């Protein structure tokens, strides 16, 4: 005890232990995202100063809107303990159907631009949402596993979209569609950002301030306990997939406006990217936990990450590899997180 060095060493160890515990608790609550964001900003920021410039962040914000919306859709399915592998083809169907509808209305009457756009959007949303309805019916009513149902739906949707287009992009939409919803700005801020903000606010209210939100978390956490609590679990599962389809479809409309064509393969990477965003954002693959804010941040993170890789000229093929690795890393971290949760439970 006479040795002062030992005393300070003890304090340092105690402090270290406390910091470690704090890090663990933060990790359990927020997941791996804070760590990844820090690595991203510091790593790319040092390698390429343009990465953190205002102009670049502005670009990323606009680009990220599509993934953000689809990730929120995916989040609804994940919260209930399932997932939706068909979000990509929901985007594709929406894109193809809305483009076809618009181009055929405009072809009939070149002046009916407003009508064409309205009908096109409605047709696209209808097509996408009906795929969500089919998913919900299969999963909630027929008890098909979400994996099989949405995997099969992905094949059905992709096949239909290719069949309708013959594999060729659909052109001939009114230019105003892309000019407003795709490239338009209001007070200097891109229109897609407004749409996304509205969706985020809507989702925030839904998840945190309505019975439906609470029930989705409960069903994902423990469907038996939820049923015994008098919750109509099937209806809410059904609604989760319908809403998931609707939101993915909305993302499809926005992306179609941006690309100014209807394409059958626009959403190919979306299932992976949206699930990655949710998992990185701390949504548990077992359902029942996950915060909206983190999912939105994680979606922006993925787009920003891809943007960073573009800036430092990493090949797009390699980017797919990196994204896959990142997803596995996030899933592993989700497991580690559950284990920590278990040890913290032994209090």
């Amino acid at each position, binding site marked *: 005890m006479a040795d002062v060095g030992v005393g300070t060493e003890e304090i340092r160890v105690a402090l270290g232990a406390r910091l470690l*515990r704090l890090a663990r608790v933060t990790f359990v609550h927020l997941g791996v995202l804070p760590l990844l964001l820090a690595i991203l900003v510091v790593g790319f920021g040092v390698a390429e100063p343009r990465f953190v410039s205002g102009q670049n962040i502005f670009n990323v914000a606009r680009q990220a809107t599509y993934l953000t919306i689809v990730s929120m859709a995916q989040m609804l399915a994940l919260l209930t303990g399932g997932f939706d592998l068909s979000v990509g083809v929901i985007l594709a169907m929406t894109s193809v159907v809305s483009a076809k509808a618009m181009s055929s209305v405009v072809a009939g009457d070149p002046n009916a631009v407003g009508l064409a756009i309205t009908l096109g959007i409605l047709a696209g949303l209808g097509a996408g949402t009906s795929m969500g309805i089919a998913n919900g019916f299969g999963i909630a009513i027929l008890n098909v596993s979400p994996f099989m149902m949405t995997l099969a739906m992905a094949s059905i949707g992709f096949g239909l979209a290719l069949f309708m287009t013959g594999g060729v992009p659909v052109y001939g939409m009114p230019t105003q569609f892309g000019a407003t919803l795709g490239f338009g700005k209001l007070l200097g801020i891109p229109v897609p950002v407004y749409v996304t903000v509205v969706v985020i606010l809507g989702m925030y209210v839904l998840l945190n*301030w309505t*019975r439906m939100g*609470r029930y989705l978390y409960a069903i994902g956490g423990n469907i038996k306990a939820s*049923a015994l609590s008098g919750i109509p679990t099937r209806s809410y599962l059904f609604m989760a997939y319908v809403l998931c389809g609707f939101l993915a479809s909305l993302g499809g409309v926005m992306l179609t406006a941006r690309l100014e064509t209807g394409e059958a393969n626009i959403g190919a990477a979306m299932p992976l990217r949206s699930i990655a965003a949710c998992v990185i954002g701390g949504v548990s693959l077992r359902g*029942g936990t996950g915060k909206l804010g983190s999912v939105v941040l994680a979606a922006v993170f993925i787009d920003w990450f891809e943007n960073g890789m573009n800036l430092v000229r990493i090949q797009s093929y390699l980017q797919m590899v990196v994204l896959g690795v990142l997803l596995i890393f996030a899933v592993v971290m989700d497991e580690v997180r559950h284990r920590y*949760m278990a040890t*913290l439970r*032994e*209090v």
Partner: protein
Amino acid sequence: MALTDAEADRPPELSSGAPALLRLRGVSKWFPGVQALDRVDFDLRAGEVHVLFGENGAGKSTLINIVAGALRPDEGHLLLRGEAADFRSVHDARQQGISAVFQEFSLVPDMTVEENLFLGAELTTGPFLNKPALHRRAEETLSRLGFVLRPRARVNRLSRAEQQMLEIAKALRSNVSILILDEPTAALTERETDRLFQLIRECRRQGAGIIYITHRMNEIHRIGDRITVLRDGRRVATLEVPEATGEKLVELMTGRRIEAFFPRVDHDPGEELLAVEGLGAGSLVRDVSLTVCAGEIVGLAGLVGSGKSEVGRACFGIEPVHAGSSRFRGRPVTRPTPRKMLEAGLVYLPPDRRTEGLVLERNVRENIALSALSLPQFSGRVLLKRRSERGICARLAERLKIVPRRIERGAAFFSGGNQQKMVIAKGLTRNPGLFIMDEPTTGIDVGAKTEVYTFMKDLVEQEGAGILLISSDLPEILHLANRTYVMYRGTVRAELKGAEITEQAVLSHCFDSGTGAAGG
């Protein structure tokens, strides 16, 4: 308190006659942020059943995990037959003759009984499995133990009790010198329990030492030799079983004095709440009639598998009903569903908190409010009233003394007793008239048990609620119920009132006629 401290200082060997089979000296174990064991000494003699007793979280599980080789102590050491032992894994400990049966089963559901029995110790000829030999050995083992299990049955087809027996058979497959049993009787019927106790006595005669964890007072006296009480990771006392009265154990375990284990409930039966006539449900229950009135606790006793739980579940609408009729508050109930029954004022508290009662991922507040969110106190037309929700849940947490009283904390982080209180609080949000409590105190420590009992008393006496108490814990029924029904193989065999409710009377109706008193 002085008494307690003095006992803690006394070395655990009360008589130095028998040599210690296993000795733990100053064993400590830390988990992130908590010390699970604090310099614990523990002795196990050859040929004794040593009961470990304590509240959930007192360190019992950590202790047996260390002995079984699943965890390693951070401090202190183990002596096996006088020699220092350091188990690197469960397998390692098993090689030394230490077998454990944990509460969580380690069975592969899709494999057969015999495959599970010899999992990790398969019989082979050369590189191939010797399946005929395996089958023979499995049959031998099972018949030696007296367990009625088909070796070729798939584990996922077995009942919980059968799985428990298989788990025990696994532990006793080879010669064991130390056997660890963690609440082994929780899922067993009375007869299977008897058989298990016979086996334990046999092991004891052969000189094995048994570490036995239980919350059931009567088991301690039936099978235990010595008992060690743990509290907050420390050994509080080690005593001979005959000295260990219920009140004394509770006092040692909780560190506070408890006047009576069971409160006296003043029943005042009023209007009839639930009346069931000729109920047939599931594949088991047939022709069950019973009534529960406001202001009384009605027991529903019977062995595991007698269908008593199914009756409760059928009333709540989660077990298919195919015959009979029921009335709740005088109104006929057609096709009950949980939602309808909750709205009518009937709450069912499931026996398994973790799988049916709570959403462990969510916090206390959300769990408590879950079944009542459609009430005007909790939500308006569209939005939830979160401030009001917080207030109501905080008051209920206060009323049920949920510890710690942090309603934003995840339900998973609470002890079993506190989780049970959450389930009760959840039932209270709707202010129901009738509670169907299915095994309300399984797996919770004695301190929490008394709290639950007191709470039941308050519900009946002060709020005039009715309670249908479904329980396999006979003392619970004997002390709390005003009337009790005894079920046997899916039907009600007897209705006992007041002074008629004795252990003898209840048990005599639980078994086949003739073997009646054997269980007492």
